[in-house]
């Protein structure tokens, strides 16, 4: 699921375990981080490779497409519902 436009990430803090795996796989040329060492929040990401969303062990990262009205969440795949957020 790779959106064709810029996205912006958010974190479900109750699911995040603070491991920074999301930052580790990020291909941005400069550290694309929040003050909590997660992927940068509410900041446009034009690469939109979604590696950060996928690598998260607890599916704590949600995202929205900036130009569209749809809000997707990879985490919806988890039967446990961790990280799930329907917009």
């Amino acid at each position, binding site marked *: 699921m790779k959106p064709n436009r810029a996205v912006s990430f958010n974190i479900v803090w109750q699911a995040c*375990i*603070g*491991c*920074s*795996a*999301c*930052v*580790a*796989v*990020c*291909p941005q*040329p*400069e*550290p694309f*981080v929040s003050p909590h*060492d997660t992927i940068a929040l509410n900041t446009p990401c034009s690469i939109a490779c979604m*590696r950060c969303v*996928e*690598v*998260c*062990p*607890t*599916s704590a990262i949600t995202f929205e497409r900036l130009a569209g009205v749809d809000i997707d969440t990879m*985490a919806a*795949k*988890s*039967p*446990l519902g*961790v*990280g799930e957020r329907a917009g």
Partner: protein
Amino acid sequence: MSVYDVDVLVVGSGPAGATTARYAAQGGLRVLLVDKKSELGTPVECSGALSEHALEDGGVPIDEEYILAPAYGFLTYAAGGEQIRHDYRSYGRAKPLGYVVDRKRFDRYLSSLASLAGVEVWLRSRMRGYIIEDGHIYARIERLGSEQTVRARVIVGADGVMSHVALWAGLSPAIRLQDMASCLQYIVNNVETEGLLEIIVGQAHAPGGYAWVFPKGGGYAEVGLGVIRTMTEYDARCHLERFMSQSFMRDRFAHANILEVQGGGVPLAAPLKKLVADHIMLVGDAGRHVNPLTGGGLHTSLRGGRIAGEYLASLGGDLVGEMGQLQGYQEQWFAQMGDDLTSLYRQRVAIFKERDIERQDALLFETLGQYFNPHSKYRKV
């Protein structure tokens, strides 16, 4: 603003950084070790298993202070439950082969060793960037909220798999998702262990990785797994829940209560080809110094940290930090460890290239079973 002057600035006080700093300081260099955290080793992102060799290689005394449980060998399970047992007690070794350590205490212990060797340690200090000028590297460090400039000959990036130092130095191409294990583990009670590190392979349990059950001391165990997300549509947590409730091992977890949740990304990549730039060196996860077959990073970090620290110490007063001078570290690292890690990476890639899941599972089972054999040439990696 005052400038703090040292020979070596080490960024990140994990096992690799603290060991590098300790050996560099023992050689007489002025070393500053900074870490962004207020409590080292947290959040825990690691199972904490390491061999006695690893401690020897890193010059770390065996100490109750950080040990949670002894490990006497390995028990490797195939997807369906078949076992390969390498219990070194039955090979006549009475003392532990290794230990499961408390990462918080272990990292604190290593930082303490470094400071006792003369290293200055700053916690809650985050590096914000650097410039290179007049043969020195100037780091901007935000320490307890105020900015401080540190002048050094070399900055050692020991800042983990999400290394900013590596990124700024242009040494770190983005790690591929298929080379990154997404790991989660629970510390649990009511799960019996027998002093062995148990490894469970199988696409059904942990696609692209494996599951583990390790003794954690005090009647606790840790149950975890790592998956490669390009090989599964579910996250690590989902696989772990399924492993504990549906696998052949489920009865063992029937009364387990989850007491802690830990996890992280483990690079199962080939080591970076370039570990040095002008005034920059990389050690530990920052250089992807992780065993790509087992995901173990403690031994590689301790040993690599020692190679880096001893190399810096050997330069002594001649340390200028240009890339040409630091190249020697990279050569030594590859000769002593890197070539073996690269070969293990190739083995891992070959295993997961196998499309037939049964054959893939069997290959991984055999390879890991062999790996933990007392005669394995890699067991000390």
